[in-house]
């Protein structure tokens, strides 16, 4: 196991390196420059500015320079936010995004697992259909519509919660709800499918035959086995949620990372694009790694290191 983990760590760094490289060159393929006032600049002026930022050098040269700085932990400064450091910007933005994502993930997973399990236990009854309808509505209403409706009815009509902005816990509730609906839908669908499968398997029948109580079967045997594919989707979902979602952040005026990222791609803010990509990828790789380890813990039959044997 120890050797396996070490090996994986090595691969993780290597993967991160590949992602950084690939993104850097892809990003440079995007047309346009990071200049803010491009519309009004003369050709000579553009040269002056591009020269100063080293953007006139060949892309490989820029790449090597970027990697050198990166190794020293320097992510550079933003083009759009003059002189602001990329690491500072990411540090400021990640907080709200992570908080929202975490809350949504917790609520969503919990309700999703419950909903999916109930549906499976009551397969093909109105309970099942009811939970299907709930989860389908969750994925069939676009998030911006849901967010807008929540904001309007809860925030404006009922005035129960603040409409938008980021000033304290109560401001997180509406965006968390809007985010979690999608999680509930995804998780409950997978949970239901898996649960049905597991409930029909021999070991559950055996457990029943042995006279283990219903809740015991579900908690000890069924849930554990049904969770595997759910974990598969939860990993990437967690990264996506916690690094922010543009739509929710824009509508609820949350100063998050998702909004920042899309914006920087749109304005070619190279250093920020790279910074967020590296951050996101590192997180993602880590989560995948954790999920793989979790596989082994939840289902001892899966032996990762051994391959075919």
């Amino acid at each position, binding site marked *: 196991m120890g050797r396996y983990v070490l090996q994986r760590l090595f691969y993780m760094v290597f993967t991160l390196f590949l992602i950084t490289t690939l993104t850097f060159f892809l990003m440079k393929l995007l047309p346009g420059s990071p200049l803010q006032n491009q519309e009004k600049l003369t050709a000579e002026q553009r040269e002056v500015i591009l020269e100063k930022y080293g953007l006139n050098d060949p892309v490989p040269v820029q790449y090597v320079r970027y990697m050198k700085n990166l190794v020293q932990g320097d992510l550079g400064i933003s083009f759009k936010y003059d002189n602001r450091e990329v690491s500072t910007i990411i540090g400021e933005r990640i907080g709200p995004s992570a908080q929202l994502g975490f809350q949504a993930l917790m609520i969503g997973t919990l309700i999703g697992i419950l909903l999916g399990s109930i549906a499976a236990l009551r397969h093909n009854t109105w309970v099942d259909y009811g939970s299907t309808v709930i989860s389908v509505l969750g994925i069939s209403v676009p998030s911006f519509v849901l967010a807008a409706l929540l904001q309007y009815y809860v925030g*404006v009509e009922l005035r129960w919660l603040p409409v938008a902005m980021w000033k304290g816990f109560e401001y997180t509730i509406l965006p968390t709800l809007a985010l979690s609906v999608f999680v509930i839908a995804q998780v409950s669908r997978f949970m239901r499918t898996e649960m049905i499968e597991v409930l029909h398997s021999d070991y559950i029948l055996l457990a029943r035959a042995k006279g283990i109580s219903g809740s015991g079967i579900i908690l000890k045997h069924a849930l554990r086995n049904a969770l595997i594919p759910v974990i598969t989707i939860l990993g990437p979902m967690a990264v996506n949620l916690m690094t922010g979602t543009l739509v929710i952040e824009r509508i609820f005026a949350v100063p998050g990372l998702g909004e920042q990222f899309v914006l920087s791609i749109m304005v070619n803010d190279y250093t920020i694009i790279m910074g967020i990509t590296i951050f996101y990828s590192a997180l993602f790789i880590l989560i995948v790694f954790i999920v793989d380890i979790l596989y082994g813990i939840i289902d001892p039959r899966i032996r990762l290191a051994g391959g075919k044997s």
Partner: protein
Amino acid sequence: MKKRFSLFFVFVLVLSTFLAACGDKDAKKEDKKDAKEEVKQVLNLPETSEIPSMDSSLATDAVSFNVMNNVMEGLYRLGEDGQTPTEGVAEKHEVSEDGKTYTFTLRSDAKWSNGEPVTANDFVYAWKRAVNPKTAAEYAYIMFDVKNAAKINNGELPVDQLGVKAVDEKTLEVQLETAVPYFISLTSFATFYPLNEKFVTEQGSKHGTEANTTLYNGPFTLSEWKHEQSFQLKKNANYWDAKTVKLEEVNYSIIKDTATGVNLYETEQIDRIALDAEYVDKYKSSEEFSTYQEPTVFFLRLNQKDKLLKNKKARQAINMGWDKQLFVDTILNNGSIPANFLVPENFVQGPEDKKDFRDANGDLVKTDKAEATKLWKEALKEVGVDSYKLVLLNYDSESAKKTAEYIKEELEQTLPGLTVDIKPQPFQQKLDLETKGDYQFSYAGWGPDYPDPMTFVDMFVTDGTHNQMEYSNPKFDELVKKSKTELMSDLPKRWESLQEAEKILFEDAAIAPMFQRGRAYLQRPYAKNIVKHNFGGDFSFKWAYIEK
């Protein structure tokens, strides 16, 4: 039986989650009551984006300019009527006979927010910094009227050759390249603001990135800056004219979505909100609703690299072939007006008669679909094709898309054989294609950099950076050149020459103007005297107050 138990277990869990959520809600209500305080001289406003920079040399965008206009001050500032320059740091100035040397006398009570006086040297430092190629200021070109500025920026001359000099602490002497008539207005622009050298050097690369790494000398200070979230302006006690300033606080929140903004307005969290077309119908009859026009003109660039658009008749047909009034009333619906010109309305007035540029030069194109069809057919014949496909390079915003869809449909109906393809691109990519001339026709806009028709007309000189469509007319070039040089001493004549140039542009049907942008907004009736400017920062709060 056992199944029932597990179901029960599951339900209890669900229930407890909901109860927890409900508990939160109760707590919130009480919080809200506490937060509701008596509103005094406080204004709560939305802003569409984070402040990109508080460094006056580096700033390039409307949001930064708007904040700077309220927390900093140049030699002059645009006054309560929105456009006449009034006293700023300078008390008075003298102009030499040839109009090329300005001597400013600075007021003795102008102070930075750290208590130090604002001196002539602060201006010299700031201006040199802005044109220094090492600074890479994207707005450096606005200083090119100052002697040697362009050459310094291109690296041909050292920075100390800039035509600006501190005669003493309180006297600033400025040499200009040409006697531009609008120089006093220019000094109200952010790039011309003073900077405290000691402070800026001390802060190094952190200057202008946080509220406490910036110095202020305007009616307000930036007292709090939570990036991407909110910022706050507070009355500046050190401001020389502090007695005029009535507002105590302006709280800005960053709201990017209009619907969210409207909801915040309705729940009384903000005092003003700009509206999209969708909301105008709903609020049109409200007394809190109004519109204003900006001096920004949108037009179609007709790239003459294209073999059909090289044909003048084809360009005229595109100019005449669609209904602008209906478009402005129905789709934009925000106070925009149809543009049949390049230099916008209510932007500049004549040097002598004070008549609006537009009044004098009138409409230069008109919609005439029958004529358009005729011209188009002739154009096709002359070029030798039966049908033609044009790709319209477009912005990626929702309203730009709607506009393009409308124009496509209108033109395709009026101009037989025409197919228009719409190509929306992200802003930077669109600009890049335009710069390279890699497009057929495009949806473009232009706002003024200084209060003079030249800022518009200059765009289309042969091989000009902003021409981008291979338009060339020697007569036009000549008129522009004259207006920039010899006619500077005869302003009424220069005025005529600029009007003549605009006419030529339309005789050639070089561009197809669309509309002059308007803005619709809601504002609380108790918020008074927020001054709107045509150029530089959008609003001034120096004279604003709350009256309930």
